[in-house]
């Protein structure tokens, strides 16, 4: 953690990845330590990341990345957390206990990518109709919903 300016306790096993183009730090967290790490980041008075403003997924070659964007209103600092999971078993613990804002963001990520958030209070589709098949933002998505017949003349 020598390159990071945010002091995260070594016991959380956090790995520093690199910086984005605007000099925001990107840090990788293991899925099973996610909830503890985020609680530490929220409560610790040196970091105090009290706003989770985005949860998104990225479909990379061979793995899924779940990207969390945190912001601290006290210090005006940004932080990006990444959790890398496999495509066979896309399970990540849910952060709804820590931030209420994570509720809909995680539902949307499930809707568009198929990533399961464990212990989520309401894991339903958010943006697409409830009986939609498939997860559109995956790179190998093929649209074969029956409503496509409306587009045929």
């Amino acid at each position, binding site marked *: 953690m020598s390159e990071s300016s945010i002091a995260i306790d070594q016991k959380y096993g956090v790995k520093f990845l690199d910086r*984005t*183009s*605007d000099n*925001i730090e*990107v840090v990788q967290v293991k899925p099973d330590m996610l909830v503890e790490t985020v609680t530490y980041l929220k409560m610790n008075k040196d970091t105090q990341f*009290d*706003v*989770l*403003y*985005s949860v*998104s997924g*990225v*479909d990379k070659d061979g793995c899924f990345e779940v*990207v969390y*964007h945190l912001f601290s*209103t006290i210090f*005006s600092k*940004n932080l*990006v957390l990444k959790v890398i999971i496999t495509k066979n078993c896309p399970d990540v613990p849910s952060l709804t206990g820590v*931030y*209420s*804002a994570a*509720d*809909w*963001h995680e539902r949307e990520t499930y809707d*568009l990518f198929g990533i399961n958030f464990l212990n989520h209070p309401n894991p339903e*589709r*958010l*943006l*697409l*109709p409830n009986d939609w098949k498939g997860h*559109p*933002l995956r790179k190998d998505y093929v649209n074969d919903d029956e409503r496509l017949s409306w587009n045929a003349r």
Partner: protein
Amino acid sequence: MSKLKENIIQKDMLINVGPQHPSTHGVLRLIINLEGEIIRDTKPVIGYLHRGKEKLAESRSYTQYLPMVDRVDYLSGFFYQAAFCYAVESITGLKVPRRAEYIRLITMELNRIASHLLWLGSFLLDLGATSPLFYVFREREDILKLLEELTGQRMMYNYYTFGGVKKEIPEGWIAKVLGLCKGMPKYFDEYEAIITKNPILLERTKGIGVMTPELGVDYAVTGPNIRASGVNYDLRKSNMYSVYSEIDFNTCLEESGDSYDRYVVRIAEMRESVKIIEKALAQLPGGIPEKLRVKRVNCGCKKEECQYCGFDTQLTGKKINPAVFKPPVGESVVSIEAPRGIATCYVVSDGTNKPYRVKWRTPSYSSVQILPELIKNRPYSDLMPIFGSLDVVLPEVDR
């Protein structure tokens, strides 16, 4: 869900404020559990306008995606274009000349005024007052005429490009903007005279829909909604993107966080925006375009630091060729203070001419998410003051 079932059998009523309703916010569906007239539980259903903007980015090149960015939130098109342009410029390392930054700032603030004006009209229309809508559209048409002269379009501008802006300011435009800025505070006083001390408005919005700072920050509510609760969270001051560091203005804060304060904050923000535009026009590098052209011809030195021919008075930094524009591998997160809150664009690039992933985080998403908390245990007639004061635009939520 089983709690809902047992409530139905007793005495509660499940009503559906359907996707089509007379308010102007868009297609939102609320399934409300009513006991008499008190709202017990709400479930918002969104997705009626989900067009798949994030997936569409992956099959279009960067410049082909720019016109679609305006339509994410059509009332603040400049802000979303700015977010996308800043993100891509940051990955590529393009520098933006200061004249272009000032033009971007002026157009963004004009757009902020237009968006707040429309919010005011539709908020009061929801409460039942129909005349402010006509007052408000009179001013909005003036602003849209100016922007149409500049960009060619009334609402979906498509004016920014990677590295700057596309066209020079037309002749006489700056004088017209200054004339508008001089007349605006008088119009705001006109609105305030009929709205601010109106007893019906005070009864319906004071103390209604109180959002405590902790609740707002927990749900990631940003923008005027959280500033009305007292949290000083304004990206124009803390992050200072663009050239906001060179312009002096006040952040508008209120304390109690009810619907009335959200109204007061937005009126104050409109007045601040007018002052920002006047100051920015006074400091525009290069000044009026006619004089700049003459001075450039007279000077003719073509040096970088020259006041008239240098880099800072150009419109775009480096003219990019859209056919071969390929940013390097990387990712970037840019946040912009849009009229409704903080809009974030997260761009992942993999070295080809099409983006790999574009993610939009929009401010109305959090506002709709916090709505069930704010209207719990309130009478049904409080739904519209609370929902209207949160300033939600549904295409932003669904993308």
